[in-house]
């Protein structure tokens, strides 16, 4: 068993009716790396991600985490194993405040979740952790605003905060920059990179935008039509003609 590999999929497949969304995908993710999965729309990235995070069950194949099989774990156990995920479409508690959103995320690992006679603010460690995360993602000023009132970019940050709060070993980020203004993207990427480096975390990132991941990731896997098309360092991927074809459909001259 190679302990350097933290997440591994073995012949993972998912079929929806006649459509094979994910087709025999084998991916190994190294510990403490920033592993990006990219591909054009409809390549099966999000389905693959849902398989990784346990949101849907695969038709066949396995998801291994630190050498143990997590394929049929219920979704709510994943974070307890140390895997947290964010969503492409912002998925938060819209009527609760930013603070409560993050606190709910960090509270998940508390032992005293069933102490219904105790005020939640007495979970001091959790409270502390919440503030720490909110500060890290830069939402301190908006902490007591209902989440739905936040602009889109801030909601993406909140989403990131919610996955950071329980301090998972592996972060699954589904298009964390989706819908953000171009100038905000580098800021968020820097944040993700910093979290990965300083916190010794493994980040698996899905993007359909190749640019976003080129500068930050260690390894890139390119998916196309449910299959792995190529895998390698950003430089290798950038030079791969096959990838260019899949991505841009043959318009190479754009990328010269």
């Amino acid at each position, binding site marked *: 068993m190679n302990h350097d590999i933290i997440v591994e999929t073995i012949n993972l497949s998912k079929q929806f009716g006649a459509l094979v969304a994910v087709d025999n995908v084998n991916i190994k993710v190294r510990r403490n790396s920033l592993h990006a999965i990219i591909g054009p729309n409809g390549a099966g990235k999000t389905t693959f991600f849902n398989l990784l995070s346990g949101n849907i069950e695969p038709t066949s194949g396995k998801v291994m985490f630190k050498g143990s099989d997590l394929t049929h774990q219920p*979704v*709510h156990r994943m974070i307890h194993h140390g895997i947290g995920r964010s969503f492409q479409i912002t998925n938060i*508690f819209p009527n609760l405040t930013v603070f409560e959103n993050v606190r*709910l995320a960090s509270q998940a690992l508390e032992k005293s979740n*069933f102490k*219904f006679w*105790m005020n*939640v603010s007495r979970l001091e460690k959790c409270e502390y952790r919440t503030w720490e995360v909110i500060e890290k993602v830069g939402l301190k000023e908006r902490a007591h605003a209902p989440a739905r009132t936040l602009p889109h970019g801030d909601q993406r940050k909140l989403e990131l905060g919610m996955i950071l709060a329980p301090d998972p070993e592996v972060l699954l980020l589904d298009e964390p920059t989706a819908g953000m203004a171009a100038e905000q993207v580098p800021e968020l990427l820097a944040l993700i990179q910093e979290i990965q480096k300083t916190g010794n975390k493994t980040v698996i990132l899905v993007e359909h935008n190749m640019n976003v991941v080129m500068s930050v990731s260690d390894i890139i896997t390119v998916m196309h039509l449910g299959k792995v098309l190529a895998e390698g360092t950003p430089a290798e991927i950038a030079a791969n003609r096959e990838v260019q074809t899949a991505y841009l459909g043959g318009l190479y001259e754009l990328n010269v």
Partner: protein
Amino acid sequence: MQKKAFSFFHNNRASLIVLFALVLLPFIVGLFEGASPIVVWENQGGISKFVEGLGIEIFILALYALSYDLIFGVTGLLSFGHAMFFAVGAYLTGIALKSFALSLPAVIGLVFLAAILQALLFGLVLPRVKGITFALVTLGMASMFHIIVTSSELGNYTGADVGLQGVMVPSFINPANERLRFYFVALVVLILIYLLYQRFVNSPTGRVCVAIRENEGRAKMLGYNTFAFKLAALMLSSFAAALAGVLHALYQPIVSPNVADLSFTVTALLIVLIGGVGTLSGALIGAFVYRLLDFGLRRYIGENASFITGTIYVAFVLFIPYGMVGTWRLKSFRVAQGWRRLLAAFKT
């Protein structure tokens, strides 16, 4: 320390004033009919005794509606079988006192067990059915219970469709002689459960329940076994509803099978909707409004009362869209904003 205590009083002055008024109410009503507080204390006053009775009914109804608000308003589970929670408490008390002559503490212990059991029963189906289907399944379960208590096979215990009569109420709390005491007991139980629920909503468990109402899928992703939390809310709710049932059985001369009926669940739903969904205090205010409306209309209009109640519901839906407390909160926020703007205009 002193400051903290003061701010406690300051922050809760409205609730405290209401509480104070409720404590004094029987005596003040007594004064109006010319009875001194001592007379009231000895349960001699006519009108004040009557007002106490009305108060007790409201407290019981409020307790029941409160328990519904916990699962419906806070946790977001639409149940059509809530009446069963109440009816189990009421029938169990009546039967245990009448047919088995158990002591009151034993009865309450029994009710506590039954409350847990029926919450588990509802919980059993939770992973299978959601939304309106859950409502229908709970409706089915409650209907089964209703059918059981009205069946003639159990008539010796439940009184079949006539209802349970002749419950031997322990004399120290007998509403006929010790109504004032009963009034305070009911008030205290209501306040205790209300405070417990307030704490619950702000506890780690309660916050998760709110999260489940808002977005259950996400709550699961965050690592919560949402089933367990829903079950916890169900248990807490079932216990309070059963307690309301106990008080009902002790207070009323007869436990009618109507309390196990769908329409009694609908009563809880209406009260919560009148007061404001998920606000807890809305359930209390809703129960007050509901019972007084019901009583007043029946008394002064008689037969056609439900025409007016129906019209009032329709008017409520159209003009007080989020219930009394809910709409008040929205409005008061706007009122406060208006004031602030006005003050700002003066300052510049």
